[in-house]
């Protein structure tokens, strides 16, 4: 009736390179990465003013630093985690700005709706938190710390050790990746769905009566995706902090 043709997934998430080859080619997603990186730097340049009463970007940057330092680093790792603050700030802002392009008119493509960046960042976090754990406890001490919970009867260790191994060394990078990637991809598909529906209802027949519904849905989901963008950046950063905290702590 409406001749509604929903585009295949590749048409809304895959962007061909307009410069370069498959290895170094630049496409829309790469430009989103670049813009996110530049916006993060810009925030910190503008925020590094030294006014006694902070306003604007300085206020935002200082609040963000305090939010991550007090709300994530101190909560998950304590004092000894302060050296990871630059890493977590980078995670948060880079992901946040990559996410936020999901709702920027004319761009509307989150860099994190492609699996490459979430996977890279999750693997980077994986290497860092296991590296930190090994440095803190030593290789064998770290394995013991992660795999053998204190107080477990020896008979149960046969069962517990593989479970702990799978959780600590196998599952976490996947969940860390997929949580960010899937949320942003789903949000993107959601917005595209209602936008396509609105577009299809832009017709001169009775069907146009229900046009306001998908249009309102697009508006509502755009606001919702703003929240999701922030929340997923926070969750990814918080989990990275939690994983590092678990690795370097001396309690199980």
């Amino acid at each position: 009736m409406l001749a509604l043709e929903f585009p295949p997934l590749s048409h809304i998430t895959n962007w061909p390179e307009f410069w370069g080859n498959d290895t170094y080619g630049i496409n829309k997603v790469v430009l989103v990465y670049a813009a996110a990186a530049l916006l993060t730097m810009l925030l910190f340049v503008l925020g590094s003013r030294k006014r006694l009463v902070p306003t604007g970007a300085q206020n935002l940057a200082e609040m963000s630093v305090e939010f991550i330092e007090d709300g994530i680093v101190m909560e998950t790792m304590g004092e000894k985690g302060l050296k990871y603050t630059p890493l977590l700030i980078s995670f948060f802002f880079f992901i946040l700005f990559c996410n936020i392009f999901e709702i920027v008119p004319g761009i509307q493509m989150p860099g994190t709706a492609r699996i490459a960046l979430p996977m890279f960042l999750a693997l980077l976090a994986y290497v860092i938190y296991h590296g930190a754990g090994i440095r803190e406890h030593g290789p064998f001490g770290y394995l013991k710390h992660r795999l053998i919970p204190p107080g477990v009867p020896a008979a149960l260790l046969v069962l517990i050790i593989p479970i702990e191994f799978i959780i600590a060394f196998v599952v976490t990078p996947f969940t860390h990746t997929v949580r960010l990637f899937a949320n942003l991809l789903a949000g993107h598909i959601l917005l595209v769905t209602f936008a396509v529906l609105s577009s299809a209802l832009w017709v001169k027949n009775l069907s146009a009566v229900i046009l306001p519904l998908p249009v309102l849905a697009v508006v509502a989901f755009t606001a919702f995706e703003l929240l999701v963008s922030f929340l997923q950046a926070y969750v990814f950063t918080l989990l990275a902090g939690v994983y590092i905290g678990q690795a370097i702590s001396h309690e199980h």
Partner: protein
Amino acid sequence: MRRLQLRLLLAAAVALVALVGFAPHGLAQEGGGDEDGTGDLTHASEECIHLLEEGGVPEDCQEAPNPILPERNEIIWGAIGFAAVFLFVWRFGLPAIKKGMNARTERIRHDLDQAEAQRQEAESVLSEYRTQLAEAKGEAGRIIEEARQTADAMRRDLSASAEADIAELRRRAAADIESAKLQAIADLRGEVANLAIGAAERVVERNLDRDTSTQLVESFIAQVGSGR
């Protein structure tokens, strides 16, 4: 230098955002290719032709690529982008912001310390003033008490002096009265004598000599005076 840095970053950000905004036109994979069939083939069309050449069916053209497999270029550029952000935040961004925040904390602490010192100084001065005020009040009380005692003494002295004066005046008045009374009595005696003589002369109708008359009268008076 700082202004230039800002301008460069701002220009780069604006340029890239604009570029991203314009990039989708003609670059995103639009399904179906050109409607008139005369233009260049889109990436999607090329992909579809490739699939059909390899023995696929037309439905394969609608099949989405596996979204779980990452693109190599996106991994590389994502890593470069994140590395740039991390290095910037680590080496410049965070230290600059922390420096500003620490400087503010230090300044506020210094101001608070200074305010505390000034408050203590003010309290000390106030305490000193209060002590001085209490001393002044004590001194004023002492002076007032002394004045009161002096006034009482003066009042007592004046009262005693006035009483003495009054007594003296009374004494003098009494003496004057006594003197006047004696004088009056003496005068009265003389007058009575004269009256008596005159009366006697009339009574006896004979003229006695003066000395005899006087003697008789005085004798009479003496009798009269002793008879009172």
